[in-house]
């Protein structure tokens, strides 16, 4: 025992190094496996505040562009609203609308910390549990898909952006509804990959890619990007497709958190099936 302590003491530099390294690795592993951002959780109140202050300042430089984008979106929404349609009342039909359930809810938020330069980019937005944001909900902007909420604190949430190794979007080609999935291979934040599109499908450069609505996170037909380049390697039955994201992730600012109101029911159904199989 005494010898052991002596041995430890003599090599205290090495063992201290080992201890700290193990601690760091433990934090990394815990984060990756359980997706529990324990420490961002506890610190997000502090870093969140600092980010909010700096973003308040840098936000001014983007005001003009943001305003144009918001104006464009407003115009688009006005086009969908009631008074954009002419009413030609030949006959009045009254009915209680039970055909349409509202199933997606949108909460506006602002990105207060973002990055595009790392392999895995986690962003922070300025709404949290208190504003009704839940874990595992989708985030979109007026130009495209942003990511998935992975952690919420009282007033902030952490978004695992599309620019992340673990993000996979269920996507489809708009013109023929062929489904595949979109991932980000790293490096260039404007470019992604569309996988699993079988080789018999007709894909052209410039085709639009939208969300498929298969995942419980995003509604159908949210823009993701356009096809840049289609390659079919010999002997492969799936295309390699490069896509250009419609969202410019380097200056995303205003986003919407999408809550699927039917998610509980859908998940329930899936779980019930799983139980039966077991």
């Amino acid at each position: 025992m005494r010898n052991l302590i002596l041995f430890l003491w003599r090599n205290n530099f090495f063992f201290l190094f080992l201890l700290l390294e193990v601690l760091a690795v433990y934090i990394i592993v815990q984060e990756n496996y359980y997706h529990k951002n324990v420490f961002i959780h506890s610190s997000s109140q502090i870093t969140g505040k600092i980010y909010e202050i700096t973003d308040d300042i840098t936000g001014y430089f983007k005001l003009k562009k943001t305003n144009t984008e918001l104006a464009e979106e407003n115009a688009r929404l006005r086009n969908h609203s009631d008074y954009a349609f002419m009413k030609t009342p030949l006959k009045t039909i009254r009915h209680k609308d039970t055909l349409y359930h509202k199933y997606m809810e949108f909460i506006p938020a602002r990105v207060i910390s973002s990055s595009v330069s790392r392999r895995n980019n986690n962003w922070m937005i300025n709404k949290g549990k208190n504003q009704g944001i839940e874990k595992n909900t989708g985030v979109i902007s007026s130009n495209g898909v942003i990511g998935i909420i992975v952690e919420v604190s009282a007033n902030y949430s952490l978004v695992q952006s599309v620019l992340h190794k673990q993000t996979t979007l269920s996507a489809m080609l708009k013109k023929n509804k062929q489904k595949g999935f979109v991932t980000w291979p790293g490096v260039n934040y404007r470019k992604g990959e569309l996988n699993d599109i079988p080789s018999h499908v007709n894909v052209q450069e410039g085709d639009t890619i939208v969300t498929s609505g298969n995942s419980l996170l995003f509604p159908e037909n949210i823009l993701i990007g356009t096809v840049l380049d289609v390659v079919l390697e010999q002997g492969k039955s799936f295309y390699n497709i490069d896509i250009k994201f419609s969202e410019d992730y380097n200056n995303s600012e205003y986003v919407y958190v999408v809550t699927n109101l039917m998610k509980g029911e859908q998940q329930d159904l899936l779980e019930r099936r799983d139980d039966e199989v077991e």
Partner: protein
Amino acid sequence: MMKWNNTIIYIFRFIIFVLIQGLVLNHMNISGYLNPLLYVMFILLLPFNLAKQWVLILAFVTGYAVDLFSGTPGMHAAALVLIAFLRPFLIDALTRQDDLEAGASPTIQDMGFRWVFTYSAILVVVHHTVFFFIESFRISEFFQTITRSLLSSLMTIVLIMLIQFLFFSGSGSKRKFT
């Protein structure tokens, strides 16, 4: 009194390096390959006579602080602790013991350009390579990651030498920041 002054300067430097990394450099995007991690310089600049155990602990704290800002729990800490571990061996290899004056720091003023360059370059390249590999954690992205670490290292080294020239070269504001 002198000692306390030094401590305050180091605390101040710590805050500056972490904030510059977290608020400026992390958001700078020249291309996906250039991603300087300047905060390494905080560990590089610690004086020679500081106990190496303290350097380890400071490295962990610095890395962890940068992690808080980057959303990469533990990754910066892991890479930086390794640097703190390698640092004393590298200093031994690069210097004869009697060359080290009491209270000297690894700056151009005390050690000269060639020494500082070799010392910084080796540690920065090791740090960046380790960090980017932990971050990507995929062999399939090997060449992408290696290019990334080398180009980012290059940029960090240029920044470090620039700061060394501006503040630690002994001309002008002599001993003001050391």
